[in-house]
């Protein structure tokens, strides 16, 4: 069995990705967990690239690393007192959680390895961006437009929920005034 460079790259990326994910899951420090998630997101993007999904890989980096990562960091910085012990997330129910994880792994991995997956062979490597654009404005136009409505709703909803309501306790008077 000779390992090609692609195999080596896959195993290296998978190892980094899963190590980072494990650190994000088990680290007591929530700031470190969020930064460890960076490695996971980048690793997934590399795997997308290895699967020749170039556009999705680029979007993964843009949205996850540029957007969700920053949002998570904002959430951490705005909610926890960085200097105090509150930063570390309390871990509760570790035993049931780990037990569920082991059972899930024991079911999933043999299933993934031995199930007779439908494989009609991989196509050739080619750029997908143009065909994705045509699909989004053709067969997938309706979900694409619905998604834009969803995003609008999300923006408005997030602003309404996170809006600072003058006095924090005085919610009822504030909302009555707004109506």
């Amino acid at each position, binding site marked *: 069995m000779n*390992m*090609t460079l692609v*195999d080596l790259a*896959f195993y290296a990326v*998978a190892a980094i*990705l*899963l190590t980072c994910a494990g650190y*994000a*899951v088990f680290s007591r420090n*929530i700031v470190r967990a*969020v930064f460890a998630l960076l490695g996971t997101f980048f690793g*997934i993007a590399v*795997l*997308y690239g290895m*699967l*020749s*999904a170039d*556009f*999705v890989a680029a*979007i993964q980096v843009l*949205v*996850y690393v540029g*957007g*969700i990562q920053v949002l*998570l960091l*904002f959430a951490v910085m*705005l*909610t*926890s007192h960085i200097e105090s012990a509150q930063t570390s*997330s*309390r*871990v*509760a*129910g570790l035993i*049931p959680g*780990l037990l569920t*994880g082991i059972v*899930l*792994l024991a079911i*999933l991995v043999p299933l*993934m*390895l031995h199930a007779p*997956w*439908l*494989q*009609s*062979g991989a*196509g050739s490597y080619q750029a997908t961006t143009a*065909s*994705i654009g045509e699909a989004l404005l053709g067969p997938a136009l309706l*979900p694409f437009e619905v*998604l834009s409505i*969803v*995003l609008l709703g*999300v923006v408005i*909803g*997030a602003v309404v*929920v*996170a809006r600072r309501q003058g006095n*924090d306790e005085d919610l009822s008077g504030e909302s009555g005034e707004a109506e």
Partner: protein
Amino acid sequence: MSQVSLEHFLVVSAVLFTLGVICIMTRRNAVAILIGIELLLNAAGLNLIAFSRFNDKLLEGSVFVLFIIVLAAAEAVVALALILALQRRLRTVDVDQTNTLKG
């Protein structure tokens, strides 16, 4: 020829999914639970791309995963807003302590 097959990607995705489930079950910080949800979504996306790649239907899988990524971003935005509101009203993001319906 590369020996990385569909199963390789599926196993990575399965481990990632399991880690996400463990994260959601053990953490009590709302932000950490959000991290677990992102891991689950990434595992699902990796599965979709892997299946579509090895069946020569990469286009369909890519469109699916793009929608998943957009919805994950939307979900993260709403969750952040909720966590901020939670922090402002109850002074905690520990989900075990947020047990009141009317603040």
